């Protein structure tokens, strides 16, 4: 193939996520099988639920700004923090990362779409279904689930009002449907990565984001059946009188904890691995250097997958776990620091002697890396059995996992949103608002989550609606930080909405980045490269090497710019 095949102008004008196109918005509300439409559906739904979860968090922090339980009834407080955690995990983080999987995987590997487009769309449409189910639980008699996002029995199966339809019932249904949706997504993503790469794109020429996505989705496939099985048993215990977990019927509540954590600890890696991928994609772009030790960084993802599946008992060190088991799971947990350490050091090696550009995505990346190093250190402390026995189930844990889940994962999500915003909307965002968003978020998150570690070390249990006055200072600081984080979403939303509506048009490759997705027009046409898929001839991070990524690169660049 010598001559350039330009993009079909009818295809380019065909419905895409471009504002202003006739009837453009309607497809976002339909059972559309285009991965890019599904990606944006995921993103918008999950950002909506970020606001819902954030609002719940601010009521929680409003209650905790003073020692006594004086803002809401303690039972309402329990429901609010339970729903905060559930919404943030199942309706914000998992869906938004699936949004990135949808948007990024096909263009990054040169595929026209996902392997199973209808399965993909079905997986997405389950999200609003269980989202509505979960929100409906606020309005059933007795209120929503109030047993924490772990839903440990026997508290979760007490069902005080005795109704069949209760908050806990809807919660379990929602989590089970979320699990089904995630498994459908995982089958789709792994198949796409394994089978649909462009010619020449060997595994060791694949972007690290795709490596981490594959590693994360492998965890979903192995772990989720355990959670879904546990949830179904819990549902039967709650509603149909079985006693899998009821001691009075011969069951054991500890069994549930194994089912729950076998998936729910690795679930953290499902969320953090793609963010490691995002850091590994973005740091080279904004440092103008190849990713340091690409192959090792890529392989370390699967080391995390493997180790992540054999650490779950570290959540149960004080549950009556025998000493030998504590020691065993302490060792496996500590081993996780080796592959994650490899990644962190590789990122430092990447920015070292680079040409740094501190744009909004880069700021979120660097902030996320700093926060992650801190979270890793408190993670090792929590792996250490005697320390965990003191600080486990205290605010130290709350501080630690928010440093992972917010200060690392959500920072990475923000970085990725800004970085790929021009590619998928065709518009540039406003840099000033982005920087404001970063600084408010960085300061707010430190103020919110650092003092929690201190409160936990002093012995403040998590999930309390009231507390002894000696913890007041840490909680006032944390609450102020939480409100600042609420304020930080204003410039973010303003930026996203106004940039998408009337931001300057984005060129095909605004960041001068290397990668197949940057050889496509912004936004990419419905089937990406269509019938003219480039042949990959080099590794993914050739910054400064002066070697083309694909054969005939100039032609593809010209093609993307003409469009």
């Amino acid at each position, binding site marked *: 193939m010598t001559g350039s095949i330009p993009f079909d102008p009818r295809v380019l004008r065909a419905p895409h996520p471009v504002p202003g196109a006739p009837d453009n918005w309607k497809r976002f509300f339909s059972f559309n099988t285009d991965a890019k439409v599904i990606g944006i559906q995921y993103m918008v739904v999950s950002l909506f639920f970020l606001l819902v979860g954030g609002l719940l968090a601010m009521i929680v922090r409003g209650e905790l700004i003073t020692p006594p339980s004086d803002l809401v*009834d303690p*039972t309402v407080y*329990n429901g609010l923090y339970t729903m905060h955690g559930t919404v943030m995990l199942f309706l914000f983080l998992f869906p938004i990362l699936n949004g990135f999987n949808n948007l990024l995987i096909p263009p990054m590997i040169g595929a026209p779409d996902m392997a199973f487009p209808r399965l993909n769309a079905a997986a997405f449409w389950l999200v609003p279904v269980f989202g509505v189910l979960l929100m409906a639980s606020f309005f059933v*008699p007795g209120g929503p689930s*109030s*047993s924490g996002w772990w839903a*440990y029995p*026997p*508290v979760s199966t*007490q069902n*005080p*009002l005795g109704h069949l339809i209760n908050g806990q019932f809807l919660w379990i249904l929602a989590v089970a449907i979320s699990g089904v949706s995630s498994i459908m997504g995982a089958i789709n993503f792994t198949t796409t990565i394994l089978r649909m790469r462009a010619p020449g794109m060997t595994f060791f020429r694949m972007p690290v984001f795709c490596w981490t996505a594959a590693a994360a989705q492998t965890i979903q496939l192995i772990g989720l059946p355990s959670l879904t099985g546990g949830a179904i048993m819990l549902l039967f215990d709650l509603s149909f009188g079985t006693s899998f977990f009821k*001691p009075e019927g011969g069951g054991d*509540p500890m069994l549930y904890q194994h089912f729950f954590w076998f998936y729910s600890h690795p679930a953290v890696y499902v969320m953090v691995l793609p963010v490691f991928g995002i850091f590994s994609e973005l740091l080279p772009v904004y440092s*103008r*250097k*190849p990713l*340091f*030790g*690409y*192959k*090792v960084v890529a392989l370390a993802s699967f080391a995390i997958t493997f180790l992540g599946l054999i650490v779950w008992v570290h959540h149960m060190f*004080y549950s*009556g776990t025998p000493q030998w088991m504590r*020691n065993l799971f302490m060792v496996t947990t*500590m*081993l996780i*620091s*080796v592959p994650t*350490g490899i990644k962190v*050091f590789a990122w*430092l*090696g990447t*920015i*070292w*002697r680079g*040409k*740094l*550009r*501190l744009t909004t995505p880069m700021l979120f990346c*660097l902030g996320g890396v*700093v926060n992650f*190093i801190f979270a890793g*250190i408190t993670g*090792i*402390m929590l792996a*250490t059995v*005697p320390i965990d026995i*003191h600080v486990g*189930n*205290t605010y130290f844990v709350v501080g630690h996992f928010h440093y992972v889940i917010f200060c690392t994962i959500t920072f990475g999500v923000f970085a990725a949103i800004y970085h790929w915003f021009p590619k998928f909307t065709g518009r540039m965002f406003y840099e000033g608002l982005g920087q404001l968003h970063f600084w408010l978020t960085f300061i707010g998150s430190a103020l919110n989550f650092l003092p929690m570690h201190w409160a936990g070390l*002093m*012995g403040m249990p998590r999930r*309390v609606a*009231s507390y*002894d006055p000696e913890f007041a200072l840490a909680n006032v600081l944390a609450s102020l930080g939480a409100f600042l984080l609420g304020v930080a979403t204003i410039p973010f939303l303003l930026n996203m909405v106004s940039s998408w509506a009337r931001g300057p048009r984005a060129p095909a490759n605004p960041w*001068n980045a290397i990668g197949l997705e940057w050889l496509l027009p912004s936004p990419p046409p419905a089937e990406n490269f269509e019938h003219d898929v480039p042949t990959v001839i080099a590794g993914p*991070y050739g*910054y*400064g090497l002066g070697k083309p990524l694909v054969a005939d690169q100039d032609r593809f660049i010209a093609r993307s710019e003409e469009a």
Partner: protein
Amino acid sequence: MTPTLPRPSRPSAAGLLLIAAGLFINLLISLAMARASHGWMPVQASSAAPHVDGLFALETGIGTFIFLGCISVIIWTLLFNRAPRYDLVDGDPIEGNLRLEIVWTVLPFVLVMLIAAHTIRVNHTLATLGGKERVAENGAAPALTASDRAPGTTFGPIEVIARQWSWEFVYPNGVRSTELHLPLERRADLRLTSMDVLHSFYVPAFRLKQDLVPGSVIRFALTPTREGRYRLRDAMFSGGYFATNQTDVVVQDPETFDGWLAEAARQPLTEAPNLALELHRQRLADGDHGWATVPPAPPPRVNVTTAVDAPHEA
């Protein structure tokens, strides 16, 4: 694995000196942080506490060293490796360095294995956790074994019973209390059980925590080492009025303790005051607003009730 390119320039003597000086300063700060970390904890009131604080200080020191080391690299690049405004040139195309990558894989591995080995030794020393046995079919608690009645410096067994939302302690002589009194420097044997849901026996000043599992009796032993009054908190979420489920541990010298126990045996059984019950009654009086909760269990009838307003040290 990774192609190794020759370094563009060898580090100069001044550079090495700078790195050495930086590492030295980092070491000093890390030592200071390890020392300061003791101040972030409550007072040490059990034989386990110094071990826990020692491990925490060790990891605070190592963690600070690693954190500052990494942050220094980031700050250095932020200061000296920024691209000038219109500079579109790429950085040095360093794709990796095999020797460096081996070092930063092997060093953390060795480090965490050393920490783990040390911790396993500490775990062995602490040995707070005894066996866990299922309650028999007829509801009877498992029989005492010889190890429960070790002679000499051991006291107990004390039955620790948790309910939604109260604590009850039953002494070998039959005294019932909602406040846990323990003799100083005696290894106290506890038998933990829960009447309804999961609870957790957590005394921050002791640095110890153990869940109470309904349907099982868990043996637990600890040695208080400091007189005083400390908070005992439920640390495993137990439903509606979870936050109220706290009481005090009072560590007394053995003679005072014996006096207290003898005096307590002469007190009649009375219903213990219970904050959860008060709050729930208040809620019912106010029209039962709020989301569903099971009603609080009837408070235990005890010889000694908790001194509500007595100040606790930690």
